């Protein structure tokens, strides 16, 4: 089986559908290690992709007023037990354009793999970008994942991101996102991670609401078991009239796992408002008892609660 086939096999295991890559109406890019093995663009979507020594460098631009009706699929991965991949991405959505991106990050055999993503995203006035990042790391936990993104949203723009790593081991994960929102811009950051074994999860997300009536929410859902550790830092700054922000963190721990939440809220304008809530603990007793009263065994009830929370 060649590398592309191996990656597609992992995509199937992770719940993806290889058939999307054959769809002429869907843009895509597949990168294995530092090799671009498949790509398709669409009118209004410009993609420059260069192979580098350790990965790829991508420049993606969506032209003004272009609305992509199908998501752009990207597939990044390392199919060997050892390796490294560094993705450098610059994304520009010109004014009043919109697109959704789905990134499949696949490391099915990782025993000693490092994956770094460094993204710079500019979302123009009135533009909208949805970004889903779905990871599959296999069962060994020998992977280090470092996703870093700096996002600037123009007035009236919207950015939603949804990071999911709930199948297989996490390994070591260090998310670092910084988002600045101009007036009337909206930002929603969601991360869902399930850590096992000795996994380490560190998430730092910062939303700066600099524009009037900018709105932002950081939502984090973490479950950790065995000896896994998680530390979540959610930072929201409200710096303009009408800015509204919220940090919402929920972490469930089991066994010897340790979880920590650090919400940091800062307001520098009297008409801005930022709130936060964090809940960390074992599975809620009342939820457990309710499900058990339906006949579910304790482990089945935990499974329902954790799966629900992780979406």
């Amino acid at each position: 089986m060649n590398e592309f086939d191996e990656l597609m096999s992992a995509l199937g295991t992770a719940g993806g559908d290889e058939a999307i890559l054959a769809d002429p109406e869907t843009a895509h890019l597949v990168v294995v290690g530092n090799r671009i093995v498949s790509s398709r663009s669409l009118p209004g979507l410009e993609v420059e992709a260069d192979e580098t020594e350790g990965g790829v460098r991508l420049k993606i631009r969506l032209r003004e007023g272009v609305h992509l009706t199908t998501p752009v699929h990207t597939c990044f991965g390392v199919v060997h037990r050892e390796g490294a991949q560094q993705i450098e991405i610059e994304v520009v959505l010109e004014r009043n354009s919109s697109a959704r991106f789905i990134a499949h990050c696949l490391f099915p055999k990782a025993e000693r793999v490092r994956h770094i993503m460094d993204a710079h995203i500019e979302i123009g006035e009135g533009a909208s970008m949805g970004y889903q990042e779905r990871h599959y790391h296999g069962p060994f936990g020998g992977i280090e994942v470092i996703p870093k993104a700096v996002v600037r949203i123009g007035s009236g723009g919207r950015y939603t991101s949804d990071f999911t790593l709930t199948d297989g081991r996490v390994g070591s994960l260090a998310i670092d996102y910084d988002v600045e929102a101009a007036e009337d811009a909206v930002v929603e950051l969601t991360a869902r991670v399930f850590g096992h074994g000795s996994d380490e999860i560190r998430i730092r997300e910062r939303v700066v609401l600099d524009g009037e009536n900018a709105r932002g929410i950081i939502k984090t859902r973490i479950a950790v078991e065995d000896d896994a550790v998680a530390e979540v830092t959610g930072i929201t700054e409200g710096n303009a009239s009408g800015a509204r922000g919220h940090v919402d963190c929920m972490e469930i721990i089991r066994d010897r796992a340790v979880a920590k939440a650090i919400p940091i809220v800062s307001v520098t304008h009297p008409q801005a408002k930022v709130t936060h809530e964090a809940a960390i603990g074992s599975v809620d007793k009342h939820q457990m008892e309710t499900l058990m009263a339906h006949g579910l065994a304790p482990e089945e009830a935990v499974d329902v609660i954790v799966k629900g929370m992780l979406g």
Partner: protein
Amino acid sequence: MALLELRDIQYTVSGRNILAGLTLAVVAGEVHALLGTNGTGKSTLASLIMGCQGYSPDSGEIRFTGTLINDLKIHERAQLGISMAWQEPARFEGLRVRDYLTLGMVAERPESALRLVGLDPSRYLDRMVDRSLSGGERKRIELASILALRPKLAILDEPDSGIDLLSTDDIIRVLDHLRNGGSAVLLITHRDEIAAAADRASQICGGRIVCTGNAGQVTADFKSKKCISCDGEVCSDE
């Protein structure tokens, strides 16, 4: 033989007798109302029957279909045919109503269970059982889950309490449906008109059942503060 038998149940918390020799029988297929003022141990009794964590009688027997169930866990009791709708139902992030109503050994389709509690399935099946539901909607869905399960014994802890109150007719319709489907119901309620719709009722006072009989009569006595045990002294706190 009674479906549920509680024999001489003693339950103490921090040296205070909550239940003091309580004895009660619920027969198959009956709706049995449990009446009592606040703090007399009605919800405690419900938790003891269901087997909730921390609720184990100090002494006495809980038998279901003749089997001693004192040491069974909640799910084991549920698998025997006991289920419960809590006064304050739990909420679940990411769990759809359709999935909640199909958990366990369900006997009724979620659509019909929702209709029976006055909710339109097309509007509710894909909603989450989370904070987006109002208190009243959540309570209706909890009742729908009991209807879907159709247990041998349904414990309904104050289905009429809380915001966005369920109407009397709605609750009586649920009781009728459960009874017609062969379920027995242990109903904890403060509303006379709902208690009166039961087949039998018992009054709890001082941690004991002080009278059991025709629901209409027991309800009327309770309403008029007649209590053969305390002569109104304990029961007069409501």
